[in-house]
């Protein structure tokens, strides 16, 4: 083929420029350590990289959230640990009280200790987090959850809110429990019914609740003589049953859906009454306040001992319910911590996978880039050398 002089020049030059452009791109890739410089170099990888970067950032955020959740839960757990310890001490005291062997002055010493525990428990229930928020007041984190009212009763001021944090896509963990759920929402009595003796009783009858039982209305067992009693529905103010009393026997009432049974022992007298009410909810503080009041009211007579015993039975059960409740919540906390640990593990291994994939897509393979660099350099040098040689070939050089 016929070749023009311009053609020889331009085609040689064109190839040199092409090689230079390739070298330039390669050099940029090597200096930025990226396998592609713009999405156009590899559109699919570029989009995947964007998605991966988002996922990694989200993952990092989730791990931060998990750390925060762990801190909050650990604080709650340590507070509840102290609460449990106080509960154990209370159980010991209640057992001693139930023995009924204490004189009034001995009771005063116990009362001292009970007051101490009551204060400590209130303090624990009003725990604040590092940033000054009350951890047991639900969403009202700026409100002190347990405050004494003018009559000295500790009342719950918070709400039932429970805050959650997101610790991975699709998994949220609660990081708080409201004071209501821990300290307040405790069933009275044995969880079905609450029994008690009237303070005006003069006999020595002691009432104990039995299971099962389920009532909505309030009832009283009123003794019409030392050996007979009426069961009165005080909600409707009607006498619903009557019976003969045998000490130590179980008194049952059943008018579906209402039913209960109690155990009554001792020697009640005419006019003595015992209350049976549905088990409602009562805070541990109210329970403690009741014990303190019982001790205050106590004078050492047989009748008072019987009233004291009747009333201490459900109170003891309430304490047990409270302890069970705290245990359940601590178990929940434990499983939350497990969830967090597991999710953290998942997030970490996910992050490793994501970062490996990202690196594969995004980072330059240095070995092949280096060998490519030396290949391109050789080619460019050859192109330049041959260009100069070819350009020098010309007949005019010989026309002298």
């Amino acid at each position: 083929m016929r070749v023009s002089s311009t053609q020889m020049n331009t085609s040689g030059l064109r190839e040199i420029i092409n090689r230079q452009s390739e070298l330039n791109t390669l050099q940029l890739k090597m200096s930025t350590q990226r396998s592609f410089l713009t999405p156009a170099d590899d559109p699919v990888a570029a989009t995947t990289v964007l998605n991966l970067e988002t996922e990694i950032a989200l993952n990092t955020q989730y791990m931060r959230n998990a750390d925060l959740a762990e801190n909050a839960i650990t604080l709650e757990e340590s507070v509840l640990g102290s609460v449990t310890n106080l509960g154990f001490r209370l159980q010991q005291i209640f057992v001693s009280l139930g023995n009924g062997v204490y004189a009034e002055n001995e009771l005063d010493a116990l009362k001292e200790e009970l007051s101490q525990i009551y204060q400590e428990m209130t303090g624990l229930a009003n725990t604040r987090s590092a940033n000054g928020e009350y951890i047991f007041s639900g969403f009202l984190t700026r409100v002190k959850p347990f405050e004494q009212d003018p009559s000295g009763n500790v009342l719950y001021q918070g709400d039932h809110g429970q805050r959650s944090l997101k610790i991975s896509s699709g998994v949220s963990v609660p990081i708080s429990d409201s004071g209501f759920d821990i300290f307040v929402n405790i069933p009275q009595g044995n969880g079905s019914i609450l029994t008690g003796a009237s303070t005006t009783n003069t006999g020595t009858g002691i009432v104990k609740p039995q299971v099962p039982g389920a009532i909505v209305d309030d009832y009283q067992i009123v003794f019409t003589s030392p050996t007979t009693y009426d069961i009165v529905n005080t909600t409707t103010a009607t006498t619903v049953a009557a019976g003969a009393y045998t000490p130590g026997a179980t008194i049952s009432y059943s008018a579906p859906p209402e039913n209960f049974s109690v155990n009554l022992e001792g020697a009640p007298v005419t006019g003595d009454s015992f209350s049976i009410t549905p088990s409602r909810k009562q805070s541990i503080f109210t329970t403690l306040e009741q014990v303190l009041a019982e001790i205050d009211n106590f004078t050492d007579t047989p009748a008072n001992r019987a009233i004291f015993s009747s009333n201490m039975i459900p109170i003891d059960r309430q304490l047990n319910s409270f302890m069970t409740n705290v245990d359940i919540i601590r178990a929940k906390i434990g499983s939350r911590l497990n969830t967090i640990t597991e999710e953290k593990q998942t997030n970490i291994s996910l992050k490793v996978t994501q970062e490996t994939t990202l690196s594969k897509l995004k980072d330059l393979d240095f070995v092949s880039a280096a060998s490519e660099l030396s290949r391109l350099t050789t080619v460019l040098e050859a192109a330049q050398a041959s260009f100069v040689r070819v350009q020098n070939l010309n007949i005019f050089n010989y026309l002298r």
Partner: protein
Amino acid sequence: MAGNFLDIGVSGLLSTQAAINTVSHNIANANNENYNRQVTQIDTRNPQFTGGNYIGTGSELDAITRIFDASTLRELQSNISIFNQLDVYLDQASRIDNLIADASTGLNGALQNFFSAVQTVANDPSSIAARQVLLSQGELLTSRFQTLTEQLNAQTRAINVGITAAADEITVLGQSIADMNVKIAASTGGGLGSPNDLLDQRDALINDLSKLVNINVIYDSNENANVFIGSGQALVVGATANRLVALPKVDDPKNLDLNLQTGSASIGITSLLNGGKLGGFLSFRNDILENSYNVMGRVALAVSSEINTQNQLGMDFNDQLGGLFFRDVNDPGVMSRRVISSTSNTGNASISLQIDDVNLVNDANYELRFQGGNYILTNNKTNAVVASFPPPGALPATISVASEGFSVVVNSGAALNGDRFSVFPTRDGGAEIKMLLTDPTQIAAAKPVNATSSLNNIGTGSIAEIIVTDTSTPQFTNIPGDIDPPILFEFLSPTTFNVRDANTNAIIVGGVGGFIPGQQNNLLALAGLNYGYDVSVTGQPQTGDTFNVFYNTGGVGDNGNMLLMGELQQQSTLDNGTSNFQQAFGRLVSDVGTRTKEARINLAASETLVAQVRDRRESISGVNLDEEAAKLIKFEQAYQASAQVISVARSLFQTIIDSTR
């Protein structure tokens, strides 16, 4: 006789001289890329009939012709046209390509930072510092949208400058070609030789023109080059040239249209033009630029609309219902800027566009025409008619186009037949997004409603969830910072309950049934009440149990609404529930990347083609200096020989003169 061969010698000298001239001309133009090498054709002169024989009388210059292949030139022009189109396209596309995916300039980083800040507020809702960070990240997000839009605007302006310059250059080149036509016509015919260099110059002009736009050249019998652009619109006919003028579009002044002006008549030919730099600008504008505006604008719309909605469903640090976080997507000014009336409209209808459901909005532009007494709305991407409606009676009227997720609002006036409106639902989204919230306490982290179970409850029923769907109901708006009325649910049996006004204890709905113990039950829904919120109760409530529902006053520790706002990052709120914000934007990255890559490959292919055709042209028409050198030697020797003939003639004459002395 002697006089005769002296004459022959002279003829040889003259024709060789012409040949040496041509060789010199070739050498001189060896580096002129539009030059076609020329060759001298030398012919014998007419012989003399003497004594029964024809005796040669020497040589003469027959013609100087250029070595030229018209089809190669045509091929070269069309390839140059394609090459320049791709070159401009790739150049423009690469800018966007670099812009959108880069971590420091793209959208992804800003979106991620914004949602991280949302989660930080969720982690510690009562921290003013965390809230302040969210406000700052919101500012950064809006300014990122605006920076990206500004970059696109800058490219629009650059394209407009490029289009105007190309149109001007095309006009000038057209005029020059017309002038050359006149010169060439004057220099040909009537036994005149071929005006090689003028033809080369005209070809060079036509080559330059094909760099700007794809052309079609037809040569007529008078050697005129007639140049046509687009689908056969005449730019040059003989000695007349028309003007190509870039003017703002009548229905979208931001962009330019191209008009061919013939005398006083002007026709729009934008859609017909292709190839060359002009074609590159136009196809980039259609394929990438418009789409980039729309995709980004749509993400901005979705972000503002979704975040606003969520913030409005919450309660802020001051116990007030949350307000707008970003500017409302249906701010009246924004709505009216989405529709541009053509300047050629004869009616006075004022139209605006209201976004109803971002999930259904796609990234097309639309055209609203008034024709045959009806408004007709066409999707410019699919060319499908999406709505058609008669002029509404009472104004302003909102006509919902449910399939597209927006409504056309006719504010006032009436359109006349032929009126046109350009509708851009998403284009300006990136420019229009703006932070409204300035006070960190106005971030609505909490849910506005709270509920508790009563201490006297016997059953195990508990509040599972508060669901807030609409805070514009009277229950929320009657008393600012409270719900009206607060509610008391009172169970009549384990499966039925009363809904009471907690203030007055009046029964709102009595004896509601259908409560299923052990499952989540939405109590207000069961009662058939639509208060904009609901309370979900689970467990087994017993007769007489009550649940109180009240405004979440003081609930600064509640992060319920922020958690929901954080969920929006990964929720598929776009493309009919198939994409989240980042995915919707990511598609732009891959789309632009793919188109840029395609352009890059096509450009490389086209470059090779141009080089091949150019080589072919060079091979046929280019000057080879070695060849010219060889010719030079040849003609030099011929010249010397002819001179020797004259010398011999002179000496023969001398011999004769001497012999007769």
